[in-house]
């Protein structure tokens, strides 16, 4: 077939109302309950490789062991990385860039991704900085990762 002479091409639009539920799981339940009720950050320690996973989970991805030892870690840590995002989820430019932080809590082996609060510019931040976690007041907590407001430079 030849390419049509006119420059109009036909396309049909498509969209689906896609909705899902996600199970937090046993590890997630433990984490969210502690966060919502006590404002605490709970992880699990692997008895064989000593990794401390935060948030809590029930299996160790390194040695494939089951994890049962819960540990409560302090809400402070080190900035492993950060970025300033100039675009939102819809690929639209943001008037104020969104700052995100990757933080290793002092007693954890893993990192946590969350907002970096009260900064507007990369020059205010450096990798290795000490940060503190900000947790919402109890009345506003719902049992979600958003019960954490983010991190602030210590």
């Amino acid at each position, binding site marked *: 077939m030849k*390419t*049509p002479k006119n420059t109009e*091409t036909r*396309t049909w639009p*498509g969209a689906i109302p*896609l909705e*899902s539920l*996600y199970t*937090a799981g046993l590890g*997630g339940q433990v984490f969210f309950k502690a966060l919502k009720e006590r404002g605490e950050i709970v992880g699990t320690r692997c008895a064989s490789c000593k*990794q401390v*996973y*935060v*948030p809590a989970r029930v299996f160790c*991805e390194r040695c494939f062991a089951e994890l049962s030892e819960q540990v409560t870690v302090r809400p402070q840590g080190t900035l*492993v*990385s*950060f*970025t*300033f*995002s*100039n*675009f*939102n*989820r*819809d*690929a639209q430019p943001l008037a104020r*860039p*969104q700052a*995100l932080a*990757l933080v290793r809590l002092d007693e954890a*082996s*893993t*990192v*946590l*991704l*969350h*907002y970096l609060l009260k900064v507007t510019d*990369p020059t205010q931040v450096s*990798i290795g900085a000490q940060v503190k976690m900000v947790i919402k007041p109890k009345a506003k907590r719902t049992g*979600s*990762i*958003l019960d954490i407001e983010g991190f602030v430079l210590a």
Partner: protein
Amino acid sequence: MPNRVAIIGVGCTPAQPTTPYLSFKELMFQEAERAYLDAGIEASEVESFVTCAEDLNEGLSIFDEYTPDQLGAVQKPMHTLTQDGLHGIADAVMQIQSGLVELVVVEAHSKASNILTPEWILDYAVDPVWNRPLGFNPHAIAGLEMNVFLHETGITPDQCAHVTAKNRTNALRNPLAAYPARTAPGDVADSPYAFYPLRETEMARTADGCVVVVLASDDRARAGKSQPVWVRGVGFANDSSTLESRDWIRAEYCRVAAQMAYRQAGIHNPGRDIHLFEVDDTYAYKELQHLVALGLYSRPGDAGRAVASGVTKPNGETPVNVSGGALGMGLTLEATGLYRVAELVAQLRKQAGARQLPHAKVALAQSWRGVPTTSGAVVVLSSE
């Protein structure tokens, strides 16, 4: 590698920002015809088919059902991998090495221009319990990774800018490239940040395209009329999918995949034994991170020094992405790895025109599945 396998035919469209006249089926049909002609075979001779595609990128559920007709695969063994096309090459190699079949076709394509909400597809890949509620653009994961990668290796933003400049300039010599441009590192340094420290010019733009590759057993390849390119090794691996516990500095998926391929190919010193590299450069820093993981540099910082001093240019000691890579050719979704293979086949057959390297005999292609994944593959090819 026991039971040798060869690539005996390739068909690929020029990568283009948009392909308004051809449907994905027509793109596939066109390149299948070209690949079968190149291989000197009829579609009816092919015994098994592997396509690589993601439902949400296609806008169709259970997309594998849509792939047989336009390849000549109706009433034949076929399946789809939700992976980059290099995984498809590994799959085909295993089918042939096992003795199950002698002639296998691998296909991947991109109609990225038809995806109206690509960021939402990526967002739907982000962990729904721990990460997605934060509501961030998933390319921010690359910004985070680049920042800590530079911090730990001492590689500089300027050295990353050299990657974009090299690849987009290389693409000028490649008629298949969608985004060729004479680019200097300073042009990149002057462009705005997208996800600090990642700049917009350091992110590969998507393109449409299709690649079909025909693979054959040793007997079949030697009996045919086409010029075979031999598969010396294949490897594939994942790191942890979990953002909380993956390696944020090293591309471990790439290192493990390379070790697997090197074992089969008998490669002990990749910098000396391999003459040409086509590696993933979805983001400019990724080219450097992947070269480190491929074992080219004993100190990671040397990857940055190498690109800045021209070692990885086409006329340098270790040419990387002579095709233009994804930065120069365009990011063609699951077909990205197969465009790397198409370039190596052209080079090893001495059919690469203005960008032909004179002495390339052993070459490597490497792929990564993009954010938020840690999935990669490596293929080592040789002309002998």
